[in-house]
């Protein structure tokens, strides 16, 4: 395969993993985060410590990245999840920037110059496998009682509580799982670039992830998948407009959001069942139309006869 195309596919696959986690947190549990690049950074550096410093296989690096990001998110969650929506969002923003600045100033891991020489273990194959596993796990979760409880928290927190749902626990669960996904994405990114630098995990990255989730449609897994691929490819396709690239990117996103205010998929999923339902509705609509035409034909025939 063309190395350039493969590169973009790999980057969309990596974004997809981070976006899947954020899709659970934002789309299903209803919590906005602008600090997920921080969890990616934790994952990237932890995995690099395991593979580069300790010489362990990549699998251990990935597992460690998920676990480390999850633990940190649990600590952050304890401090911030009691906050209401917007305040939680601001707290995550602060956290993401704090992680970046700590790594910038910590010379042991390369500081702001970055950390080169990480083994190039990320391949398109292992990323695609992890993507599939990641999507299946989240899709299974949101259709279980645990997933429904998260959705209840998003819909109406007080009603969820009096329905016996421990809202704090389910928000924490969503946060920890999404952070683990971001950690894995960070590990994959580091082992694809073979170089990591705190600058890669700035607020811009966090915002990009949130944009993808909203673009795909809150509460839609297929939307997030399509969003991750489309919005990773888009800047590359827009290279033709040269220095206006990011302007065009911004305009394209705005245009799509105006056209589809609830996101690309607007909460719907692409599943065999939803297709069947769509076709059944189309068919019913056609039949009604045909029947009404028949009826009006009848009508006009009668009119002519009279």
């Amino acid at each position: 395969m063309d190395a350039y195309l493969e590169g973009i596919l790999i980057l969309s696959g990596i974004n997809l993993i981070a976006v899947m986690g954020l899709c659970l947190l934002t789309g299903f549990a209803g919590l906005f985060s602008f600090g997920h690049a921080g969890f990616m950074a934790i994952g990237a550096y932890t995995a690099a410590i395991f593979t580069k410093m300790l010489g362990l296989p990549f699998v251990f690096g990935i597992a460690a990245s998920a676990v480390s990001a999850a633990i940190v998110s649990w600590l952050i969650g304890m401090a911030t999840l009691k906050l209401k929506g917007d305040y939680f969002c601001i707290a995550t923003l602060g956290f993401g920037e704090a992680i970046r600045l700590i790594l910038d100033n910590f010379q042991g891991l390369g500081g702001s110059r970055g950390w080169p020489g990480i083994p190039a273990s990320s391949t398109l194959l292992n990323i695609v496998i992890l993507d599939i596993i990641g999507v299946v796990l989240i899709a299974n979760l949101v259709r279980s009682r645990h997933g429904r409880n998260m959705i209840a928290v998003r819909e109406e927190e007080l009603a969820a509580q009096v329905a016996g749902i421990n809202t704090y626990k389910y928000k924490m669960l969503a946060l920890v799982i999404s952070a683990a996904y971001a950690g894995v994405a960070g590990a994959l990114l580091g082992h694809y670039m073979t170089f990591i630098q705190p600058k890669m995990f700035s607020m811009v990255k966090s915002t990009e992830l949130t944009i993808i989730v909203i673009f795909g449609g809150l509460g839609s897994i297929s939307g997030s998948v399509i969003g991750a691929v489309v919005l990773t490819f888009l800047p590359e396709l827009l290279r033709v407009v040269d220095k206006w690239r990011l302007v065009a990117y911004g305009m394209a996103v705005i245009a799509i959001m105006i056209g589809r205010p609830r996101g690309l998929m607007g909460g719907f999923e692409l599943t065999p069942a939803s297709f069947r339902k769509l076709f059944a509705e189309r068919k019913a609509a056609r039949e009604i139309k045909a029947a009404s035409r028949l009826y009006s034909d009848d009508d006009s025939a009668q009119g002519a006869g009279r």
Partner: protein
Amino acid sequence: MSNILEIKGLTKRFGGLAAVDNVDFDVREGGITGLIGPNGAGKTTIFNLITGVYKVSSGNVFFRQKDITNTEPYLVADYGITRTFQNIRLFKNLNVFENVLTACHASAKYGLAESFLRLPRFRKEELALKKKAMDLLDYMGLADRKDAIANGLPYGLQRRLEITRALALDPKLLLLDEPAAGMNPDETEQLMKLIANIRDRFNLTVLVIEHHMDLVMGVCEHIVVLNFGKKLSEGRAEEIRGNKQVIEAYLGGEHAEC
């Protein structure tokens, strides 16, 4: 008959204002108790104190002799107390079936790993949950609306759905906050019958806040009257109907007439 709920010296202060002031009353197991009073009497505040939505300033709430004062709302629900809200709080963007299915969660025991991997216990318990939700919708006459989005339902059905969702938790004590608000006399009468039926069918105790006197007098075996956060009176419907203080609270005292 024993008391399922005992409220002793319950007080809630918001700053200098005592919204609920030293209120005592008991709710008998298996009965339908009414909680009435003019606007601002503290009825809904009492519901919020029982279910742990507000923190109690002083006093205690006992559920089956167990002190549940200041328990987290989700634990209160676990003990077997659920409620509806005066301003309906449904999971608005979910459909009718999903609203009830979500509330059925406590009937399943499968864990997180089992949901991630769709293990056999997950499948089995999910089927049972779906059946339970469907049975409830059938009983409450909402089965034909199961795919409708909750927010788009007519008002009366939204109230009905909220009661259905509360029943999905298998409560022992059901707290209804103005279930007949905004209903016409016909709908109110249907609701009265429904409340009595639900009580018998699910072996519940019901505590209901209501303004519609026909509903209160019609179904409640015991009535507690509040005014300005204090208990004014309690007793059987006939006793309350003839109580001078109660009439004064609702219609104004003789000296206030002009």
